[in-house]
């Protein structure tokens, strides 16, 4: 358990922007991409292919998708 938690601590959480079609492709076809919950996976797969998504993920092996929300122009206006 200690070794496992040490590995978990090493995982780095990052923010990334992806087009939904590309993220869906990774989720469905990449063996190293996992989604934190089935609910989140269903939510992502239901999003229009050409929406931009703000994705929270941990990088490592596997890459775990922790959250994804549609990045709209209001969010860019606010953050940029």
């Amino acid at each position, binding site marked *: 358990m200690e070794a496992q938690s040490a590995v978990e601590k090493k995982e780095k959480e*990052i*923010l*990334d*922007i*992806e*087009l939904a*079609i*590309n993220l869906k492709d990774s989720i469905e076809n990449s063996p190293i991409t996992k989604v934190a919950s089935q609910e989140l996976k269903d939510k992502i797969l239901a999003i229009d*292919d*050409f929406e*931009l998504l703000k994705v929270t993920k941990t990088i490592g092996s596997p890459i775990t998708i922790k959250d994804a929300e549609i*990045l709209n*122009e*209001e969010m*860019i*206006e606010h*953050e*940029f």
Partner: protein
Amino acid sequence: MSSKCSITNRGRVDYPFLILCDEHFFRWLKNSNYKSSTISKLMKIKATSLHFNGRHNIILRDQFNIIKTEFPEYLLRAAVFSEDPSPVKDDDDDEYSTYIKHASNISSKNSIPIMILTANPQKDSYILNSHFKDLGGEVSIYSEEDAVKIVNRLFREFEKMIELKRTKI
């Protein structure tokens, strides 16, 4: 230009030209009314480029490292790809010569036109640069609103791809 565009089933677009942005364009964009729409369009173009996936919109690394302190880095990375200047750069080249040489090098290597996007105060520094004068038209310079129109022209190809995909469903 748009007639060259071809569309694939996987949501990729064969865009007819590349974009090379400088830091001055981003600083102008930040204070313009075009900020969010143009950044969003750059992100979608970069993510769907058939032959230059992930590196369709370029900025040179030195300038990226400067502006990433002024803008959220994860948003910048989604809009532009940072890369080192071409090996043809000389030590005494200024930023304009460096950008022009890089644009020319990429254009000739890939047989595709490239548009440098900048701000109005810097446009003449590109146009009057001796390296730019030597080029044969494969590199063009656009600033501010005209630069936004260039992004819009590429984005129209993205919209065509979506329209085509939806009519096939």
